[in-house]
């Protein structure tokens, strides 16, 4: 996969986790900055999906295509679902849902990279 793209995804998603974590302390709800960052993450995940599919087609690597596409699509679904689930909660727990999101996405990217290149080690 394209390393800088995946690093961008990881950085953005960790930024979501950190900002949400900072919001937790003074008991703040997700505001436009936190949600904006979440949607920015979603945009980059869409780019990642397009690039990932393009690489699958052009390079046709010897990997489990279903698993790889599963990770590409799976992490794409998380931000909207998390934002929706966070929105329905009036307490700071809604903000904590976005921490879970921000911590989960890097693991998916890591697994995705391992599917793409089984010899790859962190």
């Amino acid at each position, binding site marked *: 996969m394209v390393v800088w793209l995946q690093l961008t995804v990881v950085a953005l998603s960790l930024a979501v986790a950190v900002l949400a974590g900072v919001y937790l302390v003074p008991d703040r709800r997700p505001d436009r900055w936190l949600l904006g960052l979440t949607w920015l993450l979603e945009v980059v995940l869409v780019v990642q999906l397009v690039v990932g599919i393009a690489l699958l087609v052009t390079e046709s690597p010897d990997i489990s295509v279903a698993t790889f596409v599963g990770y590409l699509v799976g992490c794409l679904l998380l931000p909207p679902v998390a934002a929706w689930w966070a929105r329905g909660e009036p*307490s700071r727990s*809604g903000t904590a849902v976005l921490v879970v999101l921000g911590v989960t996405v890097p693991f998916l990217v890591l697994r995705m990279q391992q599917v793409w290149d089984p010899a790859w080690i962190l």
Partner: protein
Amino acid sequence: MDPVSRRGTGTGPGRVLVALYGVFAVAATGRSVVQLSLQASEAPFPYALSALAALVYVAATVGLAVDRPWSRRLAWTAVGVELVGVLVVGTLSLADPVLFPDDTVWSGYGRGYGFLPLVLPFLGLAWLLRTRPTKARPSR
């Protein structure tokens, strides 16, 4: 709203718990679908367990997220099965690795997932106890 009435399991800290269960529901379902579709005959026992784990996580997520009379019972059942599952499978996978040629979510007490599969059922049970309806019959 009646202040004495029960709290939903999907509100407050339960919101985060549902999010965690949701992640595992997706992860376990994905793993199970891939295993069953690609290599079902290779390791039928662990793959069947993966499918069971996926079912349990989906049921727990729904049971905790939804606030209906049936959902609490579903959550109790799912989290209970989850606890038994992670303890039994975790122990078996360490005692008899031959039985588990491929990993399940619960192998080695969920060490492939930062031991969260071991922690989650305890959190789930604690939360279900904590949010128990207050109008329940007094204990004997």
